[in-house]
């Protein structure tokens, strides 16, 4: 069964001084969100989002679900996963790296098992596969200490 998800964006003016808005998304879960070139390409983004931040959010959420699924299938359902994704964007070149990091509370699993499950989720989640052209996708996985 195919699932469709949609978003609408408006842009006004040229790239450098213009600005855009993610006006609405199908679920209604977020929007409007402002986007701009300075928010995308400068060290400090202000409080505006960017395509790369949204890709980071998409990848981290996809990875987390794939990892929860893989762990549960192996008999070690997680209590909690805390994941981050950092997307590196080089204007003129594109997206050069995505670094995933996850800390998990997973009863009954050791570090090696958790790292292996994280590698599997990185390889298999649909967003990872759609972004397979990114030169470097890494994952740093560790179990929460004292958990």
């Amino acid at each position, binding site marked *: 069964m195919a699932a469709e998800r949609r978003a609408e964006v408006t*842009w006004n003016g040229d790239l450098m001084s213009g600005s855009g808005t993610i006006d609405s998304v199908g679920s209604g879960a977020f*929007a409007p969100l402002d986007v701009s070139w300075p928010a995308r390409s*400068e060290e400090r983004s202000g409080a505006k989002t960017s395509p790369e931040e*949204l890709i980071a959010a998409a990848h981290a959420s996809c990875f987390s679900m794939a990892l929860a699924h893989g762990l549960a299938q192996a008999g070690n359902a*997680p209590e*909690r996963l805390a994941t981050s994704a*950092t997307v590196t964007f080089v204007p003129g*070149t594109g997206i050069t790296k995505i670094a995933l990091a996850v800390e998990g509370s997973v009863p009954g699993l050791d570090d090696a098992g958790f790292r292996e499950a994280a590698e599997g989720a990185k390889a298999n989640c649909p967003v990872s596969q759609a972004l397979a052209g990114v030169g470097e996708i890494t994952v740093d996985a560790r179990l929460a200490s004292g958990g």
Partner: protein
Amino acid sequence: MPRIERSAAISWEGNVARGVGLVSGDTGSFAELPFSLPSRLNAENGKTSPEELLAAAHGGCLAMSLASELTQAGSPPERLDVHVRIVMDEVPGQGHLVVGSEVEIAARVDGVEQDRFDALVAEADASCPFSHLIRATASVTVRARLNAT
């Protein structure tokens, strides 16, 4: 050449079928948006999903690419409306894949001919890094209308 980093954070609790996650962008522009397996695979239920976030990313990327191409051609846009639909499907032997991104653009631009506009749309698609990447598994279609009423 600047290297720009943008990050997002997730917390997930529970297994995949009944668990729920929260996604936040580090800029603070969106925070603690809930997502879950039903919000991803079933009818939209008010929660977001990785694919909806991809749709928003692709729309933002193409809007900026087209604004750039039009401006370099001497005709900056007055307004671009971009609509993106991301399709995820189960592919035999490969599980779920992002198989399509369908983009529709309505552009209000003075001083550009239709042929030139069409060429600039193709350039924008080629220069949007996300359009390029997502073709790893998805077919990308971009349809753009110039000054349609």
